[in-house]
């Protein structure tokens, strides 16, 4: 089964294709969702800090996160190196969640 | 504009718009109009301009009759309906032309 996700980087690392596909798929499913989660949480906190009513802030940030979600999932397949993909999606998601927690304690 | 005329008018305008666009595509022009040459650039321009005008008119009809939100929604969906109808027509006529 030929997978198009790899861009044929034969950089001397013998990573089995199954593992590469698994890395891409988990990044697309869980990494992207985690990133969207972080976006929604941080966006909601930002909105509340900016003076939006909480229900408004939650709705706005969730809608934005929803638009980003499928794009992020597809990006997990488009990015040439999946480690970069995991760093951005997974790492970014964690960062955003941490930022939202911080904003939550700082805010009113 | 009377109720009964609005819908046929809307779909008719969308249909003509996409028919003009279809004919401006070289493959369909060759299949349906003139198999020897590609459509001349002026013709392509005129066809696409006509399509744009028909689509604008269709939007105006929809919004005048149903208000902004329903009109916009109806127009957006009528576009797809018109395009599908034109695709069906192109297939049917191309099959017939091929014999």
């Amino acid at each position, binding site marked *: 089964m030929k997978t*198009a*996700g790899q*861009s044929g980087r034969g950089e001397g690392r013998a990573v089995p294709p199954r593992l590469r596909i698994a890395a*891409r798929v988990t990044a*697309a499913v869980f990494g992207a969702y985690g990133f*969207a*989660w*972080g976006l*929604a*949480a941080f*966006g*909601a*906190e930002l909105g*509340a800090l900016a003076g939006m*009513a*909480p*229900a*408004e*802030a*939650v*709705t*706005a*940030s*969730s*809608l934005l*996160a*929803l*638009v980003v*979600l*499928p*794009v992020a*999932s*597809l990006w997990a*397949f*488009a990015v040439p190196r999946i480690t970069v993909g995991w760093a951005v999606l997974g790492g970014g998601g964690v960062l955003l*969640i941490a930022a*939202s927690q911080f904003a*939550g304690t700082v805010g009113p | 504009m009377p109720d009964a005329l609005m819908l046929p008018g809307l779909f008719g305008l969308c249909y003509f718009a996409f028919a003009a*666009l*279809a004919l401006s*595509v070289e493959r*369909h022009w060759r299949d349906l109009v003139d198999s020897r040459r590609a459509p001349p650039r002026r013709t392509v321009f005129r066809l696409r301009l006509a399509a744009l005008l028909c689509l604008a008119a269709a939007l105006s009809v929809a919004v005048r009759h*149903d208000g902004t*939100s*329903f009109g916009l*929604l*109806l127009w*957006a*969906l*009528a*576009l*797809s*309906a018109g*395009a*599908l109808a*034109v*695709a069906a027509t*192109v*297939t049917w006529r191309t099959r017939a032309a*091929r014999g």
Partner: protein
Amino acid sequence: MTAKKRKLISPALRAAMLWPHTWAGVTLGGLLMLIFFMGSLAVFASEIDRWMMPATRVGAVETGPASLDHAVLPAVEKLAAGRAVRDWYVQLPDERRPVMALQVRTEAGNAGGMATSDGQLLPPVGTLGGTYFFYPLHYSLHLRAGFIGYWIVCFASVAMLAGLISGVVIHARIFKDFFTFRSWGQFRRSLLDLHNLTGVLVLPFHLMITITGIVIVLPIVLPAGVQALYGGDVRRFYDDALRNYSRPRSGVAAPLAPLDPMVAEARRLWGGGEPAVVFVYNAGDAASVVRINRALRDRISLDVQPVYFDGVTGQVLKYQRPGPVVATHRVLSGLHFAAFDHWPLRWLYFLFGLSGCVLIGTGMLYWMEKRRVAHGVKPGVGWRSVAAIACGSTSGMLIATLAMMAANRLLPAGIPSRELVEAGLFFLIWIGSAVHAAIRTRTDPPWSEQCTAVALLAAACVVLNWITTGEHPIRAVASADWAVLGVDAVLALTAFAAWRVSRRLAQRPGPDLSTLAKVTDHA
């Protein structure tokens, strides 16, 4: 010829998008087919209800608007059957559902029923119909525990969005091939053409319907914002966002004030419009609350503009419009729900929903035809499994739907839990069709056999409606019963189309692998 074209989408990107597009389609195609098909049926759920519940075919609302005090309250009392009522609500009659639907919660449990607009209770309808079977199947797969159904449907929907976006990226000549459908020649090429056609030409609808569907339940499937600002309390979020109001029982008994004046006041506050649903919370209590929702017939937004009244004094307790972002969310949700009274739009939703099924189906068929070459004349288990699932989730699902509607006409009225028997039959027959597909798939799934079954069942439904209710299409026209006429017409069309397809398939020779390998799909 393409020498000077600037590359908007690089071949590498195109290649990278191919794998997720293909595998999301192959693994989730069956589920998405179900969601799109049941969603299309849900557009006309009320009409399907009229067909499946003949007692509710009372024609236009003849006796005028239902009086809450004179028609609804007595019906509530009858449903309560002497037990103390805690809360109740009534969905008032409208054009599409000319009877009222009541739900009463007593200390002993729930009691529901339908009544004509003058308060006459109808006998139990004995079916879940379109509104309580096909529609919930669409958005939750009837899996309610922990909202697991919502999660699964939304996961598939996000995958659908990814499929739509990746599909556009993959499509090599989106404008040149805009109107191209080569229905002659190689079957595989025709499939791809049709897949591209239904995908590209109806793309605005597919994008809109998929994203708005997820938007409706967004706080449930992406609760990060609610977690952040409401500590995870989704109810408090909804109360805040939708301007709801509630208060606990006081324990002191008090009579309910007349409801009809409250409706008039609500109309005044709305600046016009009809009431759609009336709720009474803490019935018979001093802290009772009456909530009146506005009908959504004349607008896109799902905002029901709830007005809350004190149940004892009739004073307005709360009426507050939502903020701009929540109002936008209501409009987006309304775009999906299509609760508005605009028949051309509803038919377009129905047809485009079915075009989504064609999109998904042609995708699965294309994969099957393409892989057939790789797998040789006798495909292996993998291909046969995908093929069987494709068959079971298309013609099999149609068979189950039609069999349930036929059972609705055939099952005797008195059997206990009749609605559950109907639903059980749906799932049983669906499983049977899937098993049939699995067993009979050798080089091809049994399309012709299942299409024949679809044709026979659809025709049988029309005939059974005639026999069991006496309402044949001509009589439906005479009594202006457009709902039943519409359902019968679609059934008849389905029977005709399925029969034609079945005959064509039975005559088609088997796939010729020697030529299949040579076809270039994008020529």
